[in-house]
């Protein structure tokens, strides 16, 4: 069924859209709770969904924000430099990278601070840095901790720390930024991609900012200010003149009204809708609140997640699931063993995520992942289907990508039928509904339902054939077009 097209965003009334939603009795249901958990977390496990519906919208959002705003750094996983690959004689961080990726996936699966993890992913994509160039997982881990620590905290502080972050300094060639030959890489990206967006500064601003950042280097994985390489002369940057250094550039950038607008737009694309162009006027309430709060990230995020707009057709299923959202969400919902606990080893996800097009700590370039429709092409659709099939059937994904990371890369302990077994449900219609309520609450088309029910058929429930047909139905649920959307 094709739906009527949504009116453009500039036809909407911004204050009404961004006002907090007050659901009438019965409006807050599993459909909206699942929507919130898909966007603000990595999908709701069965118990979480039930709790969220019972607790109501306000309490559920409060719970997502309940964690401390700034947390101390986590214990380090990578404490040595990358090992030398005997084949090439060069440092090779592939194995270290896998450790980091698996650890992050495990945190997403555990869902202890899901909103903060989700924002850490947002900031990872915003300050996109790749281990493929940095080639030191220790530095990538430090950057990841930094982004997690500030994920719901102060953007001002995060920007300050990122500008001194050793992985970032390697990534954007800061050691080449010297007084005699300023390298513009960081100066350009801090404006184009981190704070203002193209068109809000001139090439001259880039050159002047590069001068201000001269001497901001890293040495053996630590930030160091090399006074002799710093150009201390006066610079004129975005209309202001002074003997600026990098911190002055950051201060001036945050003074620009365009900065909050730029970030509000990126948050909108991440949390709400990535297809409709959002005009400044429409985003103004979010951007204004962000700026007034002196860049407290929790302010716009909470405003978005509480808004009337967020619980509307403008947001609902209007994003393509990122590969990590697809994989982690599925693991959280059905990657369980007989006891109902999640049993999937995060290492077993690394190969399939690469095939789906997303390797954590390795975005394709400084712009981050392209996301949206670009996630889906014939190769990645195939990878999603094959992953769903492997997971549901507890089979290996034994392609070369998976083998590269882990020989034991299969999901033998997974028994997604555990829910059915535990509840003693044997009727095909009820089995299908149970999984649809978990995976696609409110979006299960009757014509699909009847196909799945017919497929399970009337075999005796205690036979392997019956269990297999239930798994088939579950597999197909996970491949539905609706399920690819967040």
């Amino acid at each position, binding site marked *: *069924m094709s739906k009527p097209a949504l009116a453009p965003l500039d036809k909407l009334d911004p204050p009404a859209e961004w006002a907090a939603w007050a659901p009438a009795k019965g409006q807050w249901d599993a459909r909206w709770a699942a929507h919130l958990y898909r966007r603000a977390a990595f999908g709701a496990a069965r118990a979480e969904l039930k709790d969220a519906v019972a607790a109501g919208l306000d309490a559920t959002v409060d719970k997502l924000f309940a964690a401390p705003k700034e947390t101390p750094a986590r214990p380090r996983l990578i404490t040595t430099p990358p090992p030398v690959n005997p084949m090439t004689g060069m440092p090779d961080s592939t194995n270290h990278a896998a450790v980091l990726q698996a650890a992050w996936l495990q945190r997403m699966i555990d869902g202890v601070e899901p909103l903060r993890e989700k924002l850490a992913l947002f900031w990872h994509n915003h300050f996109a840095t790749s281990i493929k160039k940095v080639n030191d997982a220790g530095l990538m881990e430090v950057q990841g901790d930094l982004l997690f620590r500030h994920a719901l905290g102060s953007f001002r502080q995060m920007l300050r720390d990122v500008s001194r972050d050793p992985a970032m300094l390697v990534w954007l060639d800061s050691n080449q930024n010297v007084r005699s030959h300023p390298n513009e890489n960081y100066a350009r990206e801090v404006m184009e991609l981190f704070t203002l967006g193209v068109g809000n500064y001139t090439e001259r601003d880039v050159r002047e900012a590069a001068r201000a950042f001269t001497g901001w280097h890293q040495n053996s994985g630590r930030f160091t200010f090399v006074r002799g390489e710093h150009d201390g002369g006066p610079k004129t940057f975005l209309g202001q003149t002074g003997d600026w250094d990098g911190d002055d550039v950051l201060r001036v950038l945050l003074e620009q009204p365009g900065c909050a607008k730029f970030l509000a737009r990126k948050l909108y694309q991440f949390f709400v809708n990535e297809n409709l162009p959002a005009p400044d006027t429409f985003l103004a309430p979010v951007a204004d609140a962000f700026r007034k709060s002196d860049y407290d990230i929790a302010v716009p995020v909470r405003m978005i997640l509480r808004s009337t707009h967020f619980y509307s057709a403008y947001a609902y299923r209007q994003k393509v699931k990122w590969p990590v959202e697809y994989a982690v969400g599925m693991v959280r919902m059905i990657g369980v063993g007989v006891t109902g606990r999640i049993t999937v080893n995060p290492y077993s996800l690394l190969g399939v995520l690469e095939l789906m097009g997303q390797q954590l700590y390795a975005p*394709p370039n400084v712009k981050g992942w392209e996301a949206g429709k670009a996630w889906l*092409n*014939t190769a990645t659709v195939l990878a999603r289907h094959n992953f769903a*099939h492997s997971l549901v059937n507890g089979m290996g994904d034994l392609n070369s990508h998976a083998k590269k990371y882990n020989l034991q890369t299969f999901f033998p302990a997974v028994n997604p039928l555990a829910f059915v077994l535990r509840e003693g449900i044997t009727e095909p219609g009820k089995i299908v509904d149970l999984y649809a309520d978990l995976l696609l609450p409110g979006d299960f088309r009757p014509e699909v339902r009847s196909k799945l029910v017919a*497929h399970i058929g009337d075999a005796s429930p205690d036979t392997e054939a019956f269990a297999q047909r239930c798994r088939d139905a579950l597999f*197909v649920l996970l491949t539905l077009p609706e399920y690819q959307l967040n």
Partner: protein
Amino acid sequence: MLSRRDFLKRSSLIATAPLIPGFIERTAQAAEPGKDTILVVLEMTGGNDGLNTVIPYRDDEYHKLRPTLHFQANQVVKVNDELGMHPALQGFGQLLQQSKLAIIQGVGYPNPDRSHFESMDRWQCGEVTAKVSGTGWLAKSVPDLAKGKGGGVPVMHVGSEKLPLACRGTTQGVFTINQEQPFELKLGLPGSEEEKARKKLLADVAAVGPDEKGDDLLPFVQRRHLQTYTSVEKLKEILKDQVRDQARYGYQPSSLFVKMDLVARLISQGFGTRVFYVALDGFDTHSGQAQTQQNLLQQIDQAVTNLFTRLQSTGDDQRTLFMTFSEFGRRAAENGSKGTDHGSGSCMFVAGPGVKPGPVGRHPSLTDLTDGDLKYHTDFRRVYATLLDGWLKVDSKMVLGDKFEKLDFLKKT
């Protein structure tokens, strides 16, 4: 809106069709494959000796520089009164006679680097600075390539070496196909009853899927799914045919011939891919060059001849161009081991009915050398720009970061 009549029509098709092929009827409109222009890129890995590929056979200087590795006028494949091609390139000679081969001479870039890796990185990224961005020129083309009608995988790398840098830097629309990584839905033991039942269920459910027309996300996803199922089936058929033919003609599965043959089959089956990338290694001929280069160029000659013969039978040759490149040429003078060392400045071939045939630019002088190397006069990015704007309809400025003067090797369309 899907009408009830359409729905019934589809359902009955699905019910009577054996398995997945029921999709193909639906995706005929969804994918619209088979009409976009295509480029096949061959990387000649190791630094091909351009001077013994396109040969100034009348130039005495050539014979002096290459006392043991030279070819005489009666050996070369004639291009004109001054130039000939390596004797292994008989098929290229025929392409030239059929007005399907352009020979671009004196190609290189400023301040050439003689390291394989440094130089290859520049060619692969379409950049000439010492530190390349790490994003390949084909990867940078993906956004425009994907606007084509096929919509599947805009760039495909055929081979088991790691993904070439030219294709890296985008997570979208680049795919590798090789023996270890077949493009298939893995739904259980192939041919088993369970696999069949799962496929049928998938087909049944897709047949009652959301309408695939429209710009909203849901129709888009449905369209991609149908395209995927169709591609998988197509590829299965193609590979089945290919394996049968391989057995018949005795080619190694890893040979260039088989890879390029697969490319030809993918193109003529309307797979929807816009750029195919294939590599052939072994051109680093520091010693005993004659035999090695003969063997490698012969492989290319046969593979390209087969590519165009196959494409011609379906008319798809008209929308296909083939190009070669190598990270550098080699020293003008041969070394003491009947080989040649790393040099710069070389030639490129572009083949297909879409080219203006013959040499483009003059052969670099053999007396006016830089450090013993041929002087380039044509920046390789001009070749890329010509192919991007003129053939693939990709904005070359987006890819190369700058505008480059076009070369005159394409027919006016």
